[in-house]
C-alpha cells in the first residue's frame, strides 16, 4: 500500500512538471499563433494539435525513436551530456507534456484571439514594451482561458498511460505512475493493490476537479 503513495507523489510530480513546461511552451505558442500571421498557419495549428488526436502509442513510438539511445536527439544527449532519457521520470514528463500540449495551446490561442488588439495597441502607445504588453495586458485578459487549458492539461497528464509506458517503462518509485501501477497490479492479479490504487486515483481526480471548479473561469480574473 505504501507503493501507492510513492506512485501518487510521482504522478503529481510528473503532471506538475509537464504542466509547467506547457505553461511556457503551450501559452507561448498559443500567443504566437493568435498574433502572428504567416502562410501555413492553419497547417501548423493542425500539426501542433496532433498529439490530442493521435493514439498515445503512436506518440510513444515517435518519442522512443527520437529520444531513444539511438535516436537523433537521444544519441546527441548521450554523446554530449551522458544523459539517457528513456526509463527516467524526465521521459515521463516529456510524454505527459507532449500529450497534454494541445489542450494548453488550443485554449491559449482561443483566449488570446478574444483579446481586443486595440487594448494592446493602446498599451503600446502608452510606451509599454512588447514583453510588458504581454504580461500586463494580453495574459491577464486571456487568463481565464489559459488557466482552464492548464487545468485540463494537468488532469490529462495525471492519467497519461500509453506514451509514458513506452518511453519511461514501469520502474516502481521512479517511473511507475498511478495509471501504470494500476495496469500492472491488474496484470498480476493483485486485486487488493489494484482496488487501493484505483481508490487513490479516483480521490485524486475528484480533488483535482473540485479545485479546478474553485479556480475555474469566472472566479480567477473578473472580466475587465
Amino acid at each position, binding site marked *: 500500500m505504501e507503493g501507492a503513495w510513492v506512485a501518487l507523489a510521482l504522478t503529481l510530480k510528473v503532471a506538475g512538471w509537464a504542466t509547467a513546461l506547457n505553461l511556457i511552451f503551450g501559452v507561448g505558442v498559443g500567443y504566437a499563433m493568435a498574433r502572428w500571421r504567416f502562410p501555413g498557419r492553419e497547417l501548423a495549428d493542425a500539426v501542433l494539435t496532433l498529439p490530442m488526436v493521435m493514439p498515445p502509442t503512436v506518440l510513444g513510438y515517435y518519442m*522512443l525513436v527520437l529520444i*531513444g*539511445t*539511438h535516436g537523433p536527439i537521444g544519441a546527441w544527449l548521450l554523446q554530449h551530456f551522458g544523459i*539517457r532519457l*528513456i*526509463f527516467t521520470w524526465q521521459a515521463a514528463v516529456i510524454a505527459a507534456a507532449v500529450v497534454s500540449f494541445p489542450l494548453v495551446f488550443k485554449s491559449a490561442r482561443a483566449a488570446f484571439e478574444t483579446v481586443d488588439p486595440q487594448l494592446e495597441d493602446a498599451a503600446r502607445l502608452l510606451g509599454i514594451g512588447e514583453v510588458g504588453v504581454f504580461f500586463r495586458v494580453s495574459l491577464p485578459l486571456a487568463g481565464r482561458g489559459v488557466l482552464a487549458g492548464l487545468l485540463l492539461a494537468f488532469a490529462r497528464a495525471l492519467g497519461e498511460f500509453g506514451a509514458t*509506458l513506452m518511453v519511461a*517503462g*514501469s*520502474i516502481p518509485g521512479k517511473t511507475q505512475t498511478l495509471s501504470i501501477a494500476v495496469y*500492472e497490479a*491488474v*496484470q*498480476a*492479479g*493483485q486485486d487488493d493493490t489494484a482496488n487501493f490504487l484505483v481508490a487513490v486515483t479516483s480521490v485524486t481526480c475528484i480533488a483535482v476537479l473540485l479545485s479546478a471548479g474553485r479556480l475555474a473561469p469566472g472566479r480567477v480574473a473578473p472580466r475587465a
Partner: protein
Amino acid sequence: MDDLPIRSTTLPRLLAFALAAGLSLAAQAADLTVSAAASLTNAFKDLAPLFEAANPGTKLQFNFAASGPLLQQIVKGAPVDVFASADQETMDQAQAQGFVQAAQRRNFVSNTLVVIVPAASARVPAGLKDLAQPAFERVAIGLPASVPVGRYAQGVLEAAGLWAAIEPKMIGAQSVRQALDYVARGEVDAGFVYSTDAALMADKVKVAFSVPTVKPILYPAAPIAAGPNGAVAQRFVEFLTAPPAQAVLAKYGFGKP
C-alpha cells in the same frame, strides 16, 4: 421531400451492414481462441495453417501476452478455449482454481533462459556475476509478478545471491518480447529472455550466455474448462504434442518437453 430517396436507401444499407457485422460475429464465435505466452507468438502463427488444414472449418484466433495477464483474463471470464503458458506455476494457478481441464493438460515444449546484450555492445558479460558490475546500468527483466521469464530470472539471481545487486538496475518488461525489444533498441545493457526470442532478433541482439534454471522451463497447454469449443480445444492441445507441430516448434528453437 428531396432527401427521401436517400433515406430509403440508407436504412436498408445500414441494416445490411448491421446484419453482416452480426453474422461475422457469429462466425467468430465458432473460432478457437488460444491464449498463448508471448514467446510462442511466431511459432504459433506458423502452426495455425497446419491445424486449420487438418481441421476444416476451424479458424484459430490467437491472444498473445505474458502468461500472468492471460491467466487474469481467463479468471475474469474471457471466452478462451486453450491456454498455453510459459511456466508451470501460472498453469498450476489456473488449474487450482478449476479453470482448465487438468486431465488434458500437456507439456509440449521446453526452453532455455539466456542473457542477451545489444549486438553492437562491446561489453559482453561472461556470467551472472558480471551483471552486478557498474558497467551494466540497466538490465531488462520481465516483471516477476506477471511474466514467467522474469520469475525464472529472479530465481537464478536469487540462487546466485545476486538479486539484491541486480534488482535496482532492473527495467521491468510487460512480457519477454518487451525485454527483447529493450535490448534490441539498445535502451538497456543486458536482458533476460528465452533462447527462442533471442534467435528471432539475431541481427540486433547477441546471446552472452545461457543460464541453467533451478526448475526446467516447460510450457504446458490445456483446454479451458468453460471454453466454448471443448472438443476442438482438446484436439489443439494434442496437435501441439504431435510430430508436425513439434517440427515447427523445433524450427524456432524450442526443445522437446
